[in-house]
């Protein structure tokens, strides 16, 4: 966890399954790449093939460590009039999106996310630069949160 100052907010986290989702994504890239690189280098010598394949796998493990930290950095907090989302490890970001400014909210889920029962919630304001998404929510949680935010947005709507 990053050393976040205690701001007295009730930070909620994405589902723990998000980490599993990211690990599978890394594995899906790393293992085939390791195989291909290993086989390609094995034409030179068996040792070179083994070494390069292991090298790629090590890179994959390192990437997994980075992703684990990034997954741990995600958080969101519902405040009275706005939603706060934080993310990032190297570049840390924290956004405040007033409920009244939300134009629409959508939920997306890729094939892998879907198989794990996860979804990404994305909030849009009239400003294209606004960046507010919460990945790796349980689908039920995402749907509930969407309805809740939409209702709050409607009562506090403020247009442009």
């Amino acid at each position, binding site marked *: 966890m990053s050393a976040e*100052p205690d*701001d007295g907010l009730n930070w909620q986290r994405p589902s723990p399954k998000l980490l599993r989702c990211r690990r599978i994504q890394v594995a899906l890239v790393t293992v085939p790449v390791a195989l291909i690189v290993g086989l390609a280098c094995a034409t030179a010598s068996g040792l070179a093939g083994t070494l390069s394949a292991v090298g790629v796998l090590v890179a994959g493990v390192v990437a997994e460590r980075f992703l684990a930290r990034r997954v741990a950095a995600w958080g969101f907090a519902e405040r009275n*009039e*706005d939603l706060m989302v934080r993310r990032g490890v*190297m*570049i*840390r*970001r*924290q*956004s*405040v*999106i*007033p409920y*009244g*400014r939300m*134009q629409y909210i959508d939920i997306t889920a890729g094939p892998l996310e879907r198989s794990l029962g996860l979804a990404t919630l994305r909030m849009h*304001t*009239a*400003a*294209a*630069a*606004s*960046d*507010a998404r919460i990945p790796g929510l349980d689908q039920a949680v995402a749907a509930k949160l969407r309805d809740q935010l939409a209702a709050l947005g409607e009562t506090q*709507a*403020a*247009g*442009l």
Partner: protein
Amino acid sequence: MTNPLPADPPRVPVAEGVPAGWHRLHPLTPVVRAGSRLFALVAVLAVIALANQRQDSSEIVTDLVVIALALSGGFISWLVTRWQVTDGVLRIDTGLIRRDSRRFPLSQVQAIDVVQSGLARILGLAELQLRVAGGDASRGGRLAWLRLADAERLRAELLAYSTAARAIQAVPAGTGGPADAPLASAVAVDPIAAGPGTGAIPASAATPEQQLFRVRSGQLAVAIALSRPGAIAFAVVAAVTAFVAVTGKTAATATFLPTAIGIAATVWRWFNGEYGTTVTAAPDGLRLNSGLIQTTAETIRPGRIQAVRLVEPLAWRPFGWCRLEVDVAGPRVRRESRGESGRLRALIPVGTKADAMQMLGVVLTSQPMPDKPVPRRVRFKAPLEYHFLAFGSDDNYVVSSDGRVTRTTTWIPLEKVQSVRWVQGPVQRWLRLSSVRLDVAGKRVTGAIEDRADAEARDLLMRLPDLARAARARAA
């Protein structure tokens, strides 16, 4: 079909001036639409005909058929396009095979521009462009082409219409923006104005219009020459001249030709676009007229301004010149089409600091200045920007300045803030700094309070949403 049929009168109680029923665009539309392409085609065919030397009549017939084909598409498009205004909605129907019917609720319209290209100007035609917020550029409406007088009348009427439509509806929060009051006062009190706007279009009501600013053409030319494209143009010309002088090979200049044409086109577009910029205070907003060959007239409605930016390039500073730009809600400009070095619509393409301050007084209710400099340790992170980084705020605006050689000061109305972001990169974390960004619905401006001390930025992140909410509540 062109006959104004008074069958179904609009129910919104203003702008009876727009006749009910469907209307066609001007019959010369296909010619203007084919425009430059048609000229290019004619030129190419003429060259081919001359090069062939055989002035065969059959070939001329072929050429005419080609031209007719080029025109027929536009003609069919004209034939199936019609528009009408009913119940505060502008409808544009078009398309022969795939019907496309668009509705533009006038209460949603951000601005209406009258645009003339060179050819249209010769033929006395103009295009009406409607701008709506959000989404992509294709969501805007175009009525091309109409007779200039018709276009201007229609614009005035549509604007009056939309103002009334919004007044009838419960006014959504944020539309009666901060520019409301100062505009009114500028019209009523400001004695600086020098007579009615020259190219301005008479408003629906007989309210006097006050000219607030008019750019001096000589100053604009010098300013462009002193800007980055101008400097590049000079560098290229100098390089080519030097090359020719040294080697004596004139033919080699042909290599530079595409570059030279590109630069010339950029400089020309800029000069043509902002030549004769005139800002007039009118009852329905700030009216902006500009252009040499291609003219645009634009009305920036009160409360639609999302950001105001004061730009002071290095080469202009000795003269005390600056540029004042506004960003209004609209489709966000895509990164690849941002060619013109991120320039926005300029209220003052180039003017003195006094001009800019006077205009700021019109578009902003209060003018906080960036008076809080960044901590000294920012020099390690941004040595070139350090001197310009500052921010300031009051109840209505957040203002921040930045830039390496060009100083840019940006005012963001708190009432327009869509979301607030806090960002901290690795170098910033090491120096205990962080930045706060304010997102607005403008085309490309984002408020950036860069490199504040960590505690201050955290405090801003917590406080700004509340300040923005308070400003919004006050405006509503």
